[in-house]
């Protein structure tokens, strides 16, 4: 069996025909990880331009335009304050439950959006994928960058809301740590989106499953209530504390409400798992790089 298959065989067959195969490179195959990173670095301007313009045009079809960048989280915060703080009066015995809730909800929403919007990401960017050859990871990276730019406003609104909603939390020096915590979450979101982008591309049905997963994540991250109150089982509690989103939300609360620096363990868990998920997600996404231009299935 002497079938021409490998690159070297093709080149040999070309030479046998008296043709010069030098200068030809295989196309439609995925580049090595190093090459891929290099290509991505080369497209950094593209990613930046793309995300910036997406962020600034995302509300362009709405009458209020970019006012929504502030308005949306503000309405959210007000809603949760009214429902849980005034009407239901949950969280009695807690010092500042409305602020606790607002921080939890807004941070959770940012990660949950990354998970769910990742599933349709490659399909909705089909026109770009088919028109130009570029490393496809640019698309999730740009989407997360765009979401992060939006989240800057959300975070500002969040800080503002907890200052004006009673009992008023006042700015302290520890509030500076909002920035690194914010960045850790952005890294986590990127890793998650790279994973869900590929899953959603291969199996669009997963959009429904991932919606449930993100709901599950909500209860596992202590978004609405302090999780320590409901879990008295040691092992269950230690599993929950390994959840990076739980740690991120908890750190943000420590910084904003308690005015303290989160302990080292929280930093380590959140950074290591966010970076770990990013590495895994990136490799997972890259492994199917060549297939994202496919027309069907």
């Amino acid at each position, binding site marked *: *069996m002497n079938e021409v298959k490998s690159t070297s065989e093709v080149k040999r067959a070309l030479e046998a025909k008296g043709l010069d195969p030098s200068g030809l490179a295989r196309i439609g195959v995925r580049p090595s990880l190093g090459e891929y990173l290099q290509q991505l670095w080369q497209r950094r301007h593209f990613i930046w331009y793309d995300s910036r313009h997406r962020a600034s045009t995302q509300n*362009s079809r709405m009458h209020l335009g970019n006012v929504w960048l502030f308005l949306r989280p503000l309405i959210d915060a007000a809603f949760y304050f009214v429902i849980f703080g005034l009407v239901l009066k949950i969280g009695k015995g807690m010092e500042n439950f409305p602020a606790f809730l607002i921080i939890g909800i807004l941070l959770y929403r940012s990660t949950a959006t990354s998970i769910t919007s990742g599933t349709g990401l490659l399909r909705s960017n089909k026109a770009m994928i088919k028109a130009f050859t570029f490393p496809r990871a640019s698309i999730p990276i740009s989407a997360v960058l765009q979401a992060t730019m939006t989240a800057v406003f959300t975070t500002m609104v969040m800080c503002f809301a907890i200052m004006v909603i009673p009992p008023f939390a006042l700015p302290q020096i520890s509030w500076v740590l909002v920035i690194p915590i914010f960045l850790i979450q952005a890294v986590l979101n990127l890793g998650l989106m790279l994973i869900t982008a590929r899953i959603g591309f291969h199996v669009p049905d997963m959009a429904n499953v991932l919606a449930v997963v993100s709901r599950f994540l909500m209860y596992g991250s202590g978004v609405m209530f302090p999780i320590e109150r409901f879990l008295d089982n040691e092992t269950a509690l230690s599993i929950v504390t390994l959840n990076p989103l739980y740690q991120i939300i908890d750190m943000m609360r420590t910084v904003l409400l308690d005015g303290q620096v989160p302990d080292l363990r929280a930093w380590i868990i959140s950074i290591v798992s966010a970076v770990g998920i990013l590495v895994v997600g990136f490799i997972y996404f890259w492994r199917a790089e060549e297939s994202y231009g496919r027309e069907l299935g």
Partner: protein
Amino acid sequence: MAENSADPALAEDDDHHDTLWVAPEESPLTVVAHRVRMRYKVPRTDRAPRSGLLGRLAPRRSMVSVSAVRGVDLLVREGEFVGIIGRNGSGKSTLLRMLAGVEPPTSGSIYTSARPQLLGVSAALMSDLTGAENIKLGFLALGMTPEKAEELVPQAAELSALGEAVDLPMRTYSSGMSSRLKFAISVMAQPRILMVDEALSTGDATFSKRSKSKMDELLEDAGTVFMVNHAPRAIENVCSRVIWMERGRVVMDGDTKEVSAMYRSFTYRMARDREDEAMAILREAIEHGEAQRAASALTLPEDHAPVAPDNVPELEPDPFTSIFELQMRAQSFPGTLQPRGRRAATRPAPATTPTTDKRGRHS
């Protein structure tokens, strides 16, 4: 070829041939395709409901495999202006997407000397951005530096001939306008290999003249241009070489005049429901193209191509099976993908009468 001059559809186009691009005699290879195949697995739904309770409950959907491209070999050199013609659904666009590296082939391999730039018909790039912003975005996506992109944007806007519309959001563009914009992006990036998928057929006369001269520039610059169209007229006015595809295979590959004349007489008869005659022409063309196909096939000694199809049944078994039957036993045809059981079933087809079964619809 003498009989073809009788076709009324043919006579009118001869005056264009003097403007044809002439490819250089000797030049390095730019695109090599080796036994490229593409199969899609898609759900198929029966139109008629099944009878009985079980038939009503059970889904009418089943997965079938559609072979869009069934083994294509190509050798293309610098300075060639290659046109790909064929009826709708013949695999032209799929082949082009694979050659451009946008879609990986199911099997086989493609080698190019540079990254091809594909210009396809698709929706707006980023519908909320203006034309000019899309141009810049496209340049950056192709790996340009922001300075270079900024510098080329006015030129690309000029080439697209969109006028003031270049500052409007792309969602307001017509399909012709958006393909002009994409053409401008692609050409200004100066690709060594440009592939145009029916995109320019939506442009008007001014633009098609402008785009032709841009493509000629590219060719003079030792580039290679591919152009897909189902209408032979669009192809034979510009291309130096034509590939005729039918059902995912290359029927003929060669000189523009020769191939497009054959293709025209084929479609002419197809359009008038003279399918027997059309099939006779197809058969003649396939025999005619055999030498060229063999020339582009890459073979090592004692080479043959066994392909084991998986368990998914084919929607339309290879219609060439009967036509190619004689040749296939005599010599190895590039990409003899054979669905199981078809070989035996089609063997009795006599060589002299054209086979009209399994021809499928023509669109």
